[in-house]
Each structure stands twice: as C-alpha cells, then as structure tokens.
C-alpha cells in the first residue's frame, strides 16, 4: 500500500484535514471524504466537466486532479456558492432562466460560469459559450444556460454599481 499523506484543504471556506492515499482523486475526496455530493462525476476521460470545481478560483476538473495536489489550497464547489443563506446570482440566473433540467451538469456549469464572470463581468454570447465549452449538458441545449449567465452578469453588475 502506498504511503498516505496528511493533507489540508480549505473546502468552501472550511479547513478539512485527512490522511489520503496518493491516488485518491480530488472528486472522491470532496464526495466521499468530505461528504459533499454536489460535485458530480459524468465521465472517465476528462471530457464532461460535471466534476468542475474552483481551485484557488480557477475551474478545474476534479476527476483529473489528485487530492494530494490540492494540499494547502482552496477549493470551492457548488456548496460554497450561496453565502449567508443568499443564493449566488448565478444560482438565481439558472433558476429564473430555466438553465437546468436534470441538474446533473448544473453544479459544474455554474462554477465555470462564475469563474468566467469573475474574469469577464460582461461577456458576449460567444464568450459565454466558449467559457462553458468544457461542460457538457445533455438536457438543455445550452440556450437557457447562456441566458442564465447573462442574467447573473446583469445582476452582478447592478450589485457593483449599487
């Protein structure tokens, strides 16, 4: 058995510690060790983006990253989007614009969108489509997801100017 490593990960603002095998994938750390199941697994070839989380603010695919690699770093998942009981604008956007159906892609999709909006607060439709191109959705046809991101962008900008 490989030597385990003691790691610290700040998951949604809370310090998590665990002894992990080197091969433990970050997604399994989040789901099975930390018990936060909002992050989903949709493929085995790093293709679908259902597992997307933010690593120090940047979206990555947590199925293709070892938990040991996240030692000392900050991870944000869907469970960390709302704050103080208030939904994040992206969550509101998905609800208002019917940006989800089965909901399986939704957490990863929202995290990609959040990262996009942090970098580019007022993206064009093409930029939005490009920004979520690492996330597959099988249900919505993306059109309402684009609207959801636009909804969030508008809301976040209002928040800034207000």
């Amino acid at each position, binding site marked *: *058995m490989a030597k385990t490593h003691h790691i610290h990960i700040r998951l949604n603002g809370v310090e998590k510690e665990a002894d992990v*095998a080197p*091969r*433990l994938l970050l997604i*399994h750390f989040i*789901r*099975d060790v930390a*018990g*936060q*199941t*909002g*992050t*989903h*697994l*949709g*493929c*085995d*070839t790093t*293709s*679908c983006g*259902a597992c997307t989380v933010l690593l120090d603010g940047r979206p990555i695919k947590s199925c293709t990253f070892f938990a040991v690699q996240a030692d000392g770093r900050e991870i944000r*998942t*869907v*469970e960390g*989007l*709302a704050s103080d009981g208030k*939904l994040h604008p992206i*969550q509101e956007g*998905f*609800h*208002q614009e*019917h940006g*989800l*159906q*089965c*909901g*399986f*892609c*939704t*957490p990863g999709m*929202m995290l990609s969108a959040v990262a996009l909006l942090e970098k580019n607060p007022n993206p064009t439709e093409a930029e*939005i*489509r*490009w920004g*979520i*191109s*690492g*996330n*597959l*959705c*099988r*249900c*919505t*046809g*993306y*059109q*309402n*997801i*684009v609207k959801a991101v636009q909804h969030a962008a508008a809301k976040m900008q209002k928040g800034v100017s207000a």
Partner: protein
Amino acid sequence: MMQTSPEIGGMGHSVKRKEDARFIQGKGTYVDDVHLPGMVYGHVVRSPYGHARLKSINIEAAMKVPGALAVITGADLAAANLAWMPTLFHDKQMVLATGKVLFQAQEVAFAVATEQYAAADMAELVEVEYEELPVLVDPHKALDADAPILREDREEKSNHIFHWEVGDRHETQKAIQGGPVTAKVDAVFQRCHPAPLETCGCVADFNKVTGKLTIWLTSQAPHAHRTLFALVGGIPEQNIRVISPDIGGGFGNKVPIYPGYVCAVVASLTLGRPVKWIESRSENLQSTGFARDYHMTAEIAAERDGTVKALRVKTLADHGAFNAAAQPSKFPAGLFSICTGSYDFPKAFCEVDGVYTNKAPGGIAYRCSFRVTEAAYLIERAMDVLAYELKMDPAALRLKNFIPPDKFPYQCPLGWTYDSGNYPAAMNLALKMAGYDELRKEQAEKRKKGELMGIGISSFTEIVGAGPAHTFDIVGIKMFDSCEIRIHPTGKAIARLGTKSQGQGHETTFPQIIAQELGIPQQDIVLEEGDTDTAPYGLGTYASRSTPVAGGATAMASRKIRDKARKIAAHLLEVSEEDLEWEPGKFFVKGAPSKAKTIQEIAFAAYTNLPAGMEAGLEAVHYYDPPNLTFPFGTYICVVDIDKGTGEVKVRRFIAVDDCGNIINPMIVEGQIHGGLTEGLAIAFMQLIGYDESGNVQGGNFMDYLLPTAVETPNWETGKTCTPSPHHPIGAKGVGESPNVGSPAAFVNAVVDALSHLGVRHIDMPVTSWKVWQILQQHGIA
C-alpha cells in the same frame, strides 16, 4: 381551456421549477449520492472480445487485494438459476457470461470490496481465459449460410430474431411498380446511445433481519422494475422497495434492467450489506441500451404532379447479442409503422427483420416513442428524394401531400388513427419564421458563385403516449399510468405518480394540472414519484408518455376530487349540487357568486363537517388508460453553410415549430425542445457507436462519442401552433421527444440540399466533415 390566475398557476403558466432549489445548491440526491453504513462496492469485469468461448476464470489474485469480499461469476449465478434474466422483449440476456461472451464489454464477473478503489483493483486482477470465435458485426451478413450462430441457447439455429410486417404488400407493390414517378432511399439510422450525463447505477440493500430489499436505482420505471426483480429473483414483491431518487437524465437509457443491478442485488443478498454499483461512462456507452441501428429502404410512388400513391419500407434491425428492446410486447419494431408520417398515402407496406450480431444489446427508445425517430427520419428523407425526382420544392411537395386538417381523426394505411393535426398551419408558420422564399433566393445566388448553402425541412408526425391497454403492455404489464392525490385539511395537497422525472420538471408541471383542475395554487401541492412503497403503480417515464398518460391520470384524479368537493360544497351552502357552478378554486351558487365555498374551505370540511353518510377525507386515485395515442407534430427548417475546403457544415439557423396540443408549462416545453434539438444535432453530425471488424466498439467513451458543447450548438428559434388532442382530458400531447424525432431529417436534408445540384440524394449519419469532403472531391469541388 380556462386560464387560471398566476397565483393558482394552472396550465399555460411558465411557473419556475420547484426542483431547482435543491439542484442549484448541490443538494440533489442522485443514486451515487446515497451512502449507507457498511456499504461496499461492486465493479464489473468485462469481456475484451466480441465473441469468445469462456475457458476459465481465476479469482485468486483478485481476492488477495486488501478489502476484497467476493467475486461473483456466471457459474455462481447459474447455481442460483440467475445466470440469465428476461429482457424487456421476448428474449433473455446473460447477467454474467456462462459458456461464451457475445459482445465486447459484456459482463463476465462482479468484484466486491469494501472500497471503491479496491473493487477496481480486483476487477483488473480477475484472470479470464478466452478462446476467440469468429465475430459477426455486419447485420447484412447475419443470415448468410457461413455466419457464425451466436445464440447457442436458442432452439432456432439462426441469427434471425423476428419478421414483422404490416400493410398491404400486394397492393403497395402494384402501386410502386405503376409509378409513374418513384423515389427510393437507402438510409441507415446509426447505432447511438442516449448517454445521459449521469450513468446507470444502484445501491442494493438487503436487510437480513427484516427480509426487505431496498434498491436505489437509476430507473425510469421503478414499479415495473420492482415487479421484474420479484419475478426473476423470487423475492416477495412486498419485500422489495425500489427508490428512484433524482435522475441525471434518462432518455430511455434507464428503462431496462442491467446486469450490474442484478449483480449488486445478488451481492447484497449474499453479503447482507448494502452494495453500490455505479458504471463508468465507458461502461455506459459500451454495454447499456443502445438505440436505433436500423438499416432501412423506403420507396415512394407518386403522380407526376407530386401526389403520393404508395410507400414501401423494408428494414433490417440490428439488435446486438440479445433482443433487449424496450418496447410494447406486441410491437417487435415498436411504433415504426408510423412511417407514413404526415402524408396521405393511400397504400403502404412496412416490413422489419431483426437479427443478432456481436454487439451490445438494446434497441431502447432513445428520446423517442419506440422507433418513431427512425420512421420520421426515413419518411422525411424519402420525401426530399421524391422532391428532387420531381424537381419540386420540398415544402410545396409536403404541403400538397399533408393529411388535410379536415380528415382527422385520420385512419392511416398502416393502422393508426391520428387524433388531430393541422400540418399546413405548422408548416406555414415555420416557412414564415424562416423567410423561406428569401432563403431560396439567397441559395440560388450563392450557387451561382459556387458557394454551398442548404435548406432542410422536416414535417414530422409523432405517435406518443403508449398506450391503450388493449394493445400496449411491457412484459405483460398494461401501459396505463396512475396518480393519487390527497388534499390535506388546510387545502394543501400531495400527489404521487407512477412516473419518474429525469429532468422534465414533473414536480412543477403535474401540480399545475391539479391547480388547473382544482384551483389549489400549484405551490401548495407537493409531488412525489419514484418510491414504490408510496407511489401508485405506473409504467414510468419514457416515450413521451408522462403527460399523455400520467397527465391524464392526474386530471382524472383531480376530477374525482372535484366531484366529491361539489357534494361537500352543496352541503355547506345548503343547496343542491345542480345549483352549483365551478370556477377554478371555488364552487358558487348559480346567479349568486358571493355564495361560494373555496376548495380550501371544502377541504377543511372534508375532515370536519361532512354531509351525513359521506366518507371522510378528500383524496382520489386514478389509473388512466388512454383511449388512443396522441400525435404531436411540427415542421422544422434548418439552414446550413458548407465550407468547401474542409467539408465542415455550419448550422446557421434552425426554426422549430411544434404542436403538442395544450401546454402545461411553456417555459418547460421550450426547454425540452431546445434539449431535444441539441440531441438531434448530435445524432445528425456526431454520435455513433461503431464496431470494427473484430468487434471492438468504437466511440465507447466521451473522447470519441461526441456530444456537442455550447459552441457547436446553435441558437434555436422556436414557434408553436396548438391543436389539442380531442380525446385527452387536458388536450395535451407530450413533447419531450418531438424535437429529437423530427430534427435529424431536417439537418441531413439541409446538407443534402446544399449538394443536391450535384446529384447528391443521401448521406448517412453522422454527417461528418470527411464524408462531405469526400463527396465534394468526387465532384471536383473541394
């Protein structure tokens, strides 16, 4: 239909979805999110070969992995008489291979360990010895004299599964021979896979003390699955509880029972611990229910003015190693005989032969009502070929041949009675939205300049809502569906259904039906599905049947409640029932609208102040058996541009006009249409589960089984007409699948249209850049 207030939120309101709250906060519960104390993990060992004799299985090394609990093999299952299980269609299927394997990725053993990672390690260490056998991949060779016989378990020593035909062979043949104009197309609807974003899986938990088996299952049909587990496993049905929690998309993939489920159940029965099995994406694509694989020929005879006379269809169906088609038991080719589509064919004949090959089993209804997609694709392609033959505009040809609106209910030559339709209305709206004449002008100008642009039309008719119980059953269980409604004393309600949402938004739409019927605000109604211990029996959600069937049940159950409510209201208002009038939410005395009782007051009275002799409570159950199917329709128009240098096809525009009768929630319907069109796009241009000559599956993971991203997906332009179903309680028809049924032909027709002046009449899907480029090369264009 009376429009209710936004507060009530009945039919026609774009009510925001209730289920969203948990999904946007990561609080959904999908099967893989179920975690039970003491849970262990299963991993399937699969065959690397397409056809091979199984010589031996050695589990020694696997059992040395720390945490190893068991390896179950076909021999173990055979001892318990469980090595085979019935499929959903008059056949049986190996759970774990015994004797030989018949397709690559077939289930050979099931490794169980205390940890998921250990189970994967074990699976790799199970040593299986195979002796390779000749592989049969091409269905056209399945009936050759020298073809290997795949199914040694069957009495018939042949790869032929069934022959099925309908219509008038002789008359149709005569008509086709008589012409004067005929058109013919050979079209393959390729093997593809629904690939919902969540794969299949289960947690099986057998409690040795209570004898109860609970199975959390990715199931579109939990009740039927419970019955099948009872029949096959010999477990008393009252001791089985199937829970279908949140489902991450189904599209037909989650209708069958898969070997992995059975193995997990067996492992749990053996070990007395909860066993989780979740398949990987590759396993999902390579082994669970594929769709289509229909090799079709259509011939049309027509008059010179374009009037169609007859349609003849001949099809070879590749079913893979076992006939695991999920379809009504009297219909070996599902509802494929809807292949006359939207057109008034006086004569038609359709025949289908099914064969076995060394491929994964299936034949499931992928976002489709049992082979309707194949039928719609074929007729819509054939009509275009006829248009070219006649040098007639494809829109004009269709308008000429549509079943006229005044001919409904329409009896088609292959036996169906279409409930209602107004095809020219949908077509004309689509043409207008597209600016069709302008597009044709633009195309002509582009052609002069050597540029390639195409316009594709598809005017499909669907057949959904299976179905009337006299004709429709799945493994003997009649295809009704059910709804149970209970009104609480405070006027709030809970409804339970036999269906199961996989993203369609049932928690929102079904309360809207009740709100429409009873005037109880939709937000006061909770909807539950998927737990067989609590929900009434139903056949589940697929083939666009939830709205037509369970929607009918919901309306009828609501009406039973309204009938009782009327009695209570009469009692409360001290008038006779006939003196009362209903408007959503209350009964009032005719001519004295202020003398009224709201449904909430009535509900309270149902528990507190009943007329003498009346049973307490306000609830109802209804098992709805539809009198007929419903026939949604629409016209789609696709505009493409082709890059001559690379063969790339760009979808410039897509106009979709749908008619699904009365609409419960326009927002949700539109979302369903977007999603279905996107899957249609994927089928037309990307999706293929292929096999090489040695039986190796190609396109067995998401690197090669291509799903479009937001970048490849165009903006969809939607429109609607409304022709209610006359026989349905709420006039609804079902829509989730129309866009997937109707759109592939529109895409392909557009590409062929762009190349039609070169004499191109057909391109098989997926229409890849390289296929287009090769055609351009052949014509000296690329």
